[in-house]
């Protein structure tokens, strides 16, 4: 069966609703299907990648550390919209470090996060086969 390009589009913040957590569960399961997977974080979705999230005070599951495992699942294309960061006063440094090992480059550790402009992201969306929103 041919490989398809899947893009998971994340636009919701992480803890006010369960969408972000359950979306990440789909990504992890989907990784086993060996498709061409990318993730996009847009609008309040960029908050999912914030450093130092600690849910002990609200008693819900802290799934933020799970994003760090994505590299091990061969999910290494993580697009973050620059405009979404900017209006939230955020930069790349406010986000978790997410890395993968590049098998085509002697397993060198590389950054999974690519901060892209709206125009670039519009192109990336056009190149996909399946667009998943939660």
């Amino acid at each position, binding site marked *: 069966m041919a490989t398809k390009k899947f893009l998971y589009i994340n636009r919701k913040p992480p803890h006010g609703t369960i969408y972000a957590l359950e979306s990440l569960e789909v990504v992890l399961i989907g990784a086993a299907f060996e498709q061409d997977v990318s993730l996009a974080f847009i609008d309040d979705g960029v908050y999912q990648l914030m450093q130092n999230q600690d849910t002990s005070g609200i008693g819900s599951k802290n799934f933020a550390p799970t994003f760090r495992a994505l590299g091990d699942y061969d999910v290494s294309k993580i697009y973050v919209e620059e405009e979404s960061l900017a209006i939230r006063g955020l930069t790349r440094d406010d986000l978790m470090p997410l890395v993968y090992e590049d098998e085509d480059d002697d397993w060198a550790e590389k950054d999974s996060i690519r901060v892209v402009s709206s125009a670039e*992201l519009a192109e990336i969306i056009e190149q996909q086969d399946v667009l998943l929103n939660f």
Partner: protein
Amino acid sequence: MTVLHIVNKSPFDHGSLDTCLRLSRVDSAILLIEDGVYAVQNNTAVTDTLRQALGQHQVYALRPDLEARGINPEKMIEGIALVDYDGFVKLTTEYDKLQSWL
């Protein structure tokens, strides 16, 4: 290879329509459904936004959702095409992929 963007939220309380327009390429199309159809009315705070969108995209709206909300098609911004559920299905076959801006 182009996209049918689907927007289902009111443009007056949510940023979905703005984000859709910011991230849609010129040749893609936009379908307004559910509370998204409130964007079609004339003389609102988002009328200019929608007029600009019409210069770049074909814009559709789901008629049963308009009727449910009492929106008078005569007060609609010119250039928006109405479809029913059969037309909705037809649209999804004419565009290569579907992007629901939830």
